[in-house]
């Protein structure tokens, strides 16, 4: 395969870009970045999650610039982050510190802290709401009579409940040192669990969902029960340079999912295996898909795609797949000319062989020719 630089007038390329930019302009008021941030937070959340960069306002800008293409928006965020220095790593946060706005446990009906539906349409019909065409939305919670609940409570993690009952094994040994950082070092196989979680956390939503789904459809052994799904805010904490005390800079909105997987057939002491998912933004299907993949990858099998860490991590990143798939539309003239030449050559040799073996004097038809020159 070969690549050569091709030329096309810069002016023409600029025109094509101008035509692209024109598509965001219409006769109505221009969409403001704040509106995207406020009203389309699922889009910005997805872009931040896949870009691996929490920056709501810039994510909204990226979504606007990419005209709603989330992978392109994530690419823009990653390109921006690559120009920045890292100040530091945060203090390590435990997910139980999350200020949850939503927590449901499909596994435990009476989970301590309660089932909090939060903002969701999970239990209602998916029907088009034609009232939104009028653009006159009103706050449906305006008339709520809300009790004073005080400060947010920390909700006990379901895995802790399982651990208290001995249904979940204790960690094998404390892990010292900094976790792997896949933004700074390539993933090697077999990967460490921290690398798997980081790569899945910034995986492309559709890819994570599809690969997780493949395990549920029979291409894998994991069919988990979700212990809980949570949406909320995690503190971003650093050590203050003057006081040496931990201080909170901000909070990131995240979605978390935990699953339990029965492994009684494989162990003498029946316990649960587990899967874990955590990602920036409100993105429950990605967090759940990540959970299924985390549990599947722990089986470390080559039998099914979802259980192969190499397969999953090589295909789940949106930037990689976007780049490779979309580069195919760029000029490949030399590659294609080479393929054409090879096919013509093979056909000529075959025809020559048929002529030599043929008892008749019939001439074979000429292979089709193109106007392509051989000067590439």
């Amino acid at each position, binding site marked *: 395969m070969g690549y050569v630089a091709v030329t096309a007038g810069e002016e023409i390329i600029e025109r094509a870009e101008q035509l692209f930019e024109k598509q965001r302009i219409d006769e109505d008021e221009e969409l403001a970045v704040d509106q995207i941030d406020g009203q389309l937070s699922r889009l910005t959340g997805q872009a*931040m999650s896949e870009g*691996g*960069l*929490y*920056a*709501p*306002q*810039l994510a909204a800008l990226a979504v606007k610039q990419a005209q709603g293409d989330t992978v392109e928006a994530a690419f823009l965020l990653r390109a921006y*982050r690559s120009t*920045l*220095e*890292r*100040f530091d790593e*945060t*203090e*390590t*946060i*435990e*997910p*139980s510190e999350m200020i949850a*706005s939503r927590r449901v446990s499909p596994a435990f*009906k009476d989970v301590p802290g*309660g*089932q*909090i*539906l*939060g*903002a969701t349409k999970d239990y209602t019909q998916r029907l088009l709401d034609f009232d939104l065409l009028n653009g006159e939305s009103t706050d449906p*919670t305006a008339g709520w009579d*809300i*009790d004073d*609940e005080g*400060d*947010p409570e920390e909700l006990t993690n379901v*895995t802790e409940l399982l651990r208290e009952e001995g249904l*979940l094994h204790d*960690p*094998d040994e*404390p892990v010292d040192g900094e*976790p792997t*950082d*896949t*933004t700074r070092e390539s993933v090697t196989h077999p990967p460490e669990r*921290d690398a798997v979680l*980081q790569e899945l*956390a910034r995986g492309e939503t559709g890819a994570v969902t599809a690969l997780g789904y493949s395990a549920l459809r029979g291409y894998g052994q994991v069919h988990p029960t979700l212990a809980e799904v949570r949406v909320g805010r995690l503190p*971003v904490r*650093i050590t*203050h*340079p*003057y*006081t040496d005390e931990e*201080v909170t*800079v*901000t909070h*990131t909105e995240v979605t978390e999912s*935990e699953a339990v997987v029965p492994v009684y057939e494989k162990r003498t002491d029946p316990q649960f295996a587990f899967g*874990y998912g955590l*990602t*920036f933004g409100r993105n429950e299907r990605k967090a759940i898909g990540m959970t299924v993949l985390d549990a599947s990858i722990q089986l470390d099998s080559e039998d099914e795609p979802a259980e192969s860490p190499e397969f999953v991590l090589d295909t789940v990143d949106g930037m990689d797949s976007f780049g490779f798939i979309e580069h195919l539309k760029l000029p490949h003239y030399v590659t294609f000319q080479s393929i054409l030449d090879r096919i013509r050559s093979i056909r000529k040799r075959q025809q020559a062989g048929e002529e030599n073996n043929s008892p008749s004097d019939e001439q074979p038809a000429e292979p089709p020719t193109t106007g392509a020159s051989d000067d590439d």
Partner: protein
Amino acid sequence: MVDPHDRSDRFELIAACEEATLARFANDVLEADPPLSVRQEPRPQLLMQQVQEPVQRRPFNLGEVLVTPAEVELDGARGFAMLPGKAERGALSGAIVDAAVAGGHEETPSIVAGLEEVADRRREQRQREWAESKHTAVEFETMEDQE
């Protein structure tokens, strides 16, 4: 109780403050033209957010968070601030505000009052959001006894 006179508390309140408010405080402080040197230019940088997953209790890198830190020295007192996002003006203003309170600048009472308002608003918002979420708390019932 959050105390704006406490350096760590003040850091969190400045980080939660709007850029325009911080800029107004900083302008008030700089009106008398006190000696000011910028020790760290406000420039967007990254914090890698590390989380401990709850089962094996291993930390992993969730992703990076965009922040803008800045550090100044104002009339002999140092100030440090870090704002979420790309916020150069807010971070520099925040560092000036931090240094002003640390050095006992005459604007301290109004700054402290402003930061206390931020603390109140932050607490109210957090409580309101929690109350709204709790308003959707549900008890699922199994239907096995309802044939």
